């Protein structure tokens, strides 16, 4: 199994395993569906991967983008869809990805999320996992291999997700709660950290 396919497979596993946890996070400050949506979306990704095995990492990510876009729904569907689509576009049809390309793909993914969702850092969204991850990946890419890049990204994303706990949401459904959104982790940041951890796991 290639790294990309393994990444997506591990992501699907993570979504299934953490489904209830993500639902619980969304229950606190949203509408109790994030875990269900992500699980449904990544199961669809697995189906697609089995149906038409992709030739390149870029193709795998493009297929993922399409599956998520059409099966997740809600806010997360278009955001993750755009993220994977932009990453796929950046990778093009390269068969091999080096550390710099990887860091660039992650940055493109984050930029896609920001372009669609218009959230800034600190708004308590998945951006707060992606932006530190992208920064850490860029730093690691300067003198590390792809595994180092992915580990750096995963760790930074996890820290970023944890750091959303104290934030007051200004975008997405949690923003309706105003100050009451503080004290809870953003579900999209949590799922982003799981996906980036899966990326590192796939490279190990």
């Amino acid at each position, binding site marked *: 199994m290639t790294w990309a396919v393994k990444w997506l497979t591990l992501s699907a596993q993570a979504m299934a395993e953490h489904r209830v946890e993500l*639902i619980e996070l969304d*229950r606190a*400050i*949203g*509408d*109790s*569906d994030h875990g*269900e*949506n992500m699980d*449904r979306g990544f199961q669809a990704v697995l189906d697609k991967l089995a149906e038409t095995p992709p030739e390149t990492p870029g193709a795998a990510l493009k297929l993922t983008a399409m599956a998520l*876009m*059409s*099966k*997740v*729904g*809600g*806010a*997360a*569907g*278009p*955001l993750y869809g755009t993220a994977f689509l932009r990453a796929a576009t950046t990778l093009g049809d390269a068969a091999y990805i080096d550390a710099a390309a990887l860091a660039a793909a992650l940055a493109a993914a984050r930029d896609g999320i920001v372009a*669609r*969702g218009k959230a800034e850092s600190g708004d308590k969204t998945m951006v707060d996992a992606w932006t530190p991850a992208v920064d850490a990946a860029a730093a690691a890419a300067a003198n590390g291999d792809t595994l180092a890049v992915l580990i750096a990204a995963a760790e930074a994303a996890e820290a970023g997700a944890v750091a959303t706990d104290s934030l007051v949401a*200004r*975008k*997405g*459904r949690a*923003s*309706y*709660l*105003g100050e*009451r959104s503080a004290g809870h982790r953003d579900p999209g940041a949590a799922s982003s950290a799981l996906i980036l951890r899966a990326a590192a796991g796939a490279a190990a």
Partner: protein
Amino acid sequence: MKKLINDPRAVVDESVEGFGLAHADLVTVSADPKYVTRKDAPVAGKVGLVSGGGSGHEPLHAGFVGRGMLDAAVPGAVFTSPTPDQIIPATLAVNSGAGVVHIVKNYTGDVLNFETAAEMAQAEGVEVRTVLVNDDVAVEDSLYTAGRRGVGGTVLVEKIAGAAAERGDDLDAVAAIGDRVNQNVRTMGVALSACTVPHAGTPSFDLEDNEIEIGIGIHGEPGRHKIAMEDADGITGRLLEPILSDLGTASGEKVLLFVNGMGGTPLSELYIVYRRAAQILAERGLTVERSLVGNYITSLEMQGCSVSVLRLDDEMTALWDAPVHTPALRWGV
């Protein structure tokens, strides 16, 4: 969790299937991708009206598909906006060449998915306009937030814009009247209990026996704040006050008063709320020209209600009165 369901993941499929069976005279159901269209769609020369959103708000939106209201409804998973691969074919199916208006409740998910679908439908040659509904005064409106939610006002936008489309208004005119309704309607809701999303299995928030949530939306999300339980008259005052001050109504104006049940509250209680709301409007010198009381935009089995006030002008009143023939709203035909 006790619900009249089978597999929690089949809730929307089976419910929409039953809906299609019960209303086969009015609607056609596409099972996959899932959407519901008016039986005679596309209606030649008529602007198409498409709305949609997460399921769990029934009868919204599918219950409003039919003559004089929506041409198509696109149901997502429970409380999850539908995806472009549903919205696009629904849009194409109801386009007669006169273009299609998307009525979208202002939630990030709905906005993003409809936005994508609109772009792609436009790429296929369908002119699309979007009416964004954001009538919920419980939410602070600001450039730096997701903005106000679309709630009760959605039903009124769909009815009035639907009547405009039915009488032959063109694409821009239908979108304009939809926007006008949205600009003149404000809503505020209260929950006495939470609802339980089938796949989640636990109530969407926790409330003590003596607490209620003021400023709830329609997705089982908590509201702006909890307060101790009050009587119906007190609660109704709390709902109307921000509505009227935000709407800036002036004595002598005519309004439509809409008391909406969230799904688990008896109709008798909605009329108790209506009674007090009508009294307050009268005290403010407003004339209730039209009214609507019932469960029209719900949050599963949540107990509670929302109150909407729409400032009417003669054209809106005439369009409100125009014939409508859908599973959930019908008159004049």
